[in-house]
């Protein structure tokens, strides 16, 4: 490749890069004055971190106990229940 061709290639690459930058600027709108949120989000984040996981209601414990009870008193139901899982 001749040196003249190399410089032409470089020029073409630079031109493509500029076009690409211009397209990117056009497609990504400026955030303007909305660079920061309207309120401080950190206290809400701290509250969320401190939140305790929701406890399991008694009804669900009762259902689990019933399920285990059926499996214990009717062992023949275990393979049948597994068949449906």
């Amino acid at each position, binding site marked *: 490749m001749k040196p003249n061709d190399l410089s032409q290639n470089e020029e073409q690459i630079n031109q493509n890069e500029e076009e690409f930058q211009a397209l990117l600027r056009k497609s990504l709108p400026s955030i303007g004055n909305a660079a920061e949120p309207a309120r401080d989000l950190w206290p809400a984040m701290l509250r969320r971190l401190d939140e305790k996981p929701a406890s399991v209601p008694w009804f669900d414990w009762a259902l689990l106990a*019933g*399920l285990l009870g059926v499996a214990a008193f009717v062992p023949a139901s275990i*393979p049948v229940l597994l068949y*449906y899982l």
Partner: protein
Amino acid sequence: MNTHPYIRAYLAGVFFPTLGLPVMLAGFLVLRFVFQVQFPIERGLVFPLALVPSVWGLWNMLWLALRASRPIPAGLHGAILPLLLLPAGACIATSLGLLALGSHGVTWFQSCYVPYALIAPCFLAAIAGYYLVWKYVVGFLNRTLGIA
């Protein structure tokens, strides 16, 4: 941007039954080849291995589709599923010779006898199990995957 929520719903649905597949398969293989159980258990694998996970995935997709118009908790939605799966599973099991209907009860896998009187508690136990799994496991996965 399309975030493909239905694919995520399907994956969240199939997660739990798919997780249990290797364990069940191992159990079946141990029974058949270690304990030399003569009954052809592999006939019964088609329902839990092939149909149930797909149905769970599709059922979760349905839950997602219904959520916009009629939102119901995932646990309740899952508790409805045994009403469809149990008769379907029983039909398949009967046609494959896994389930024999007797005068006083049914016999599963030629060895597990369940009297008719105990079928109702077993059915309720299945509904309770489905409710709990859908509420806690599928619900958690739906939240984790950002569709709930």
